[in-house]
């Protein structure tokens, strides 16, 4: 009887240690998930900012200004346009 009790006691101790260990593990993993989620929302924000930046650089007003002033481009005169006919 005493031997069985001792054995059961050991089992209880072992399983409680297991609970503690797995709890710790779970919290560590949870913290990792949390970090990744934060990173994902941060990246989302950065994506928005980059899109914003892209649209600012690619604004038609800016492109037209650069094309006209820096590259000295101009719309072609009607005589300079060659139309390509697509054969059906």
């Amino acid at each position, binding site marked *: 009887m005493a031997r069985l009790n001792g054995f059961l006691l050991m089992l209880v101790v072992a399983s409680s240690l297991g609970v503690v260990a797995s709890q710790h593990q*779970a*919290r560590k993993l*949870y*913290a990792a998930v*949390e970090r990744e989620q934060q990173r994902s929302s941060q990246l*989302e*924000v950065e994506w*928005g*900012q980059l*899109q*914003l930046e*892209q*649209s*600012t650089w*690619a*604004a*038609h*007003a800016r492109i*037209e200004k650069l094309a006209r002033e820096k590259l000295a481009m101009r719309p072609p005169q*009607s*005589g300079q*346009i*060659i*139309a*390509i*006919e*697509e*054969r059906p």
Partner: protein
Amino acid sequence: MTKAKKGVTFNHNPLLRSELPAWRPRFVLLCLLGGSLALIGRAAYLQGVNDQFLQAKGESRYARLLGVPATRGKITDRQGDVLAVSSPVKSIWAIPEDARLSPAQTRQLAGLLEMDVNEVNQKLAVDKEFVYLKRQVSPELADHIAALKLPGIHDQREYRRFYPGGEVTAHMLGFTGVDDKGQEGIELAYESALAGKPGSRRVVKDRRGNVVEDVQSIRPPQDGKEVALALDNKIQYLAHAALKQAITDNKAKAGGVVVLDAKTGEILALANAPTFNPNNRVHLTGDQLRNRALTDTYEPGSTMKPFTAALALENGKFTSNTIINCAPGRMTIGTATISDAHPHGALTVAQVIQKSSNIGAAKMALTFQPEVMWKMFDNLGFGSPLKLGFPGEVGGRLRPAKSWRPIEQATMSYGHGISVSLMQMANAYQVFARDGDMVPLSLSRLDAPPLHGTQVFSPQTAREVRQMLEMVVQPGGTATQANIPGYRVGGKTGTAMKLVGGRYALKYVASFVGIAPISDPRLIVAVMIDEPTGGKHYGGDVAGPVFAQVMGGALRTLGVPADAPLKPLQVARQGATSAASGESM
């Protein structure tokens, strides 16, 4: 004694040998019993009866309710270019009582916030528990301030809306307030779709404030949906730039341009002048805010005539070649006299449109029943709002047919005595761009064109009027400046005098509404210039060039094949190239 010797030594004390009174141990026992009963009772009370309170207290030591922010949806154009996006910023706030800053610290803070030191001191001197020092600063700056670890100074995460298009898309998009809620334009019209719903969740935090466990998610956050507009960013820019130029050139008060896709009813561009920068709305006036194309009405003038002609053809009393005598350029109906800007002789119906004769239009209109004419205006969408969902849309003025006098019926045939918005006018021109039918307009991008519209005129009538509209931009018409090399275009000019205090003053609204390419119309462009004072005031001279610029650019942007010969024509045929490259093809 042997017993005593075996026993404990304190028995030797003779005082103890005397018997205790019997009640004393019982009393002590009772006290102990009572005490333990009290403890058990208290424990039972705390565990069983009043457990909620303690559990809540305990939870509050480690559990936290966290708000989960949701972002507002983006607005994009039809190609997916971002037109409006929310980005996190921080607001710096303070608890004035806790903010005991040294003068050096205050100076540093004021410097970082780009504020006056006195202003900061003033804000910190108020007797409140919460005061914003500065709202919506960049996250980097907020981190910088947080690093100073000033007492009583905190920051708070907020969102700010950015509009990369600036003034180009200002009127279409509208803007949001400081709380990220829509206040004007699309931002208001699509508020329910764009707005995110913040969620919340309960978590367990450890000693260091890290979240270690998710207890429950009370409400998952819902990010706002992305809204794809029908707007084409490039066409919008073309419209904005051309309008701005025309306003400057003609020293005009205001103006508007609308571009519609005739195939689908999508609004490809909507530009107004004067405009504003939605990213910086400090010195905003009501004049800049007005979305003239949708929320203002004007008397359209001659742009109304094609509808009169269409109704005349539809009734069968006229054909394009029916002769109408417009001499001598004046006509008296009742007590009022109407006249043409340039007197004409006998004109065909087509020439009435081409030369824009008021007399010709009035003579056609006087053959209609008022109810029939009213019904046509109503079918075209005049007199009632378009129901786009855009804030502040107006319906214009169309009086019931019963109250029309003949002179009014005559003036309405050339667009006076009736008021419409520019968007309504563009919308109505669908009947000519399409084969006599109209589809509902759409602010957002459509995946499939509407199947069928409401028929207003027969396809035959629509085609005939389209021919007349083409004559307007050809030599002899009123808008030769609206011609676009490479494309067959058609349209109608409008030069209306403005009503000022109930009388027509020498102030004009010049407009042009046109469609192209005539062989298979794809686009409708409507231009309106309010009070041009640069010496020219005719619709063809003022609004025509804007139309040509916007329409030409838009057709090329959309890759619509040219349907008119270019001069000198250069066409590279595929046959020629394949012949040159031999048999490899």
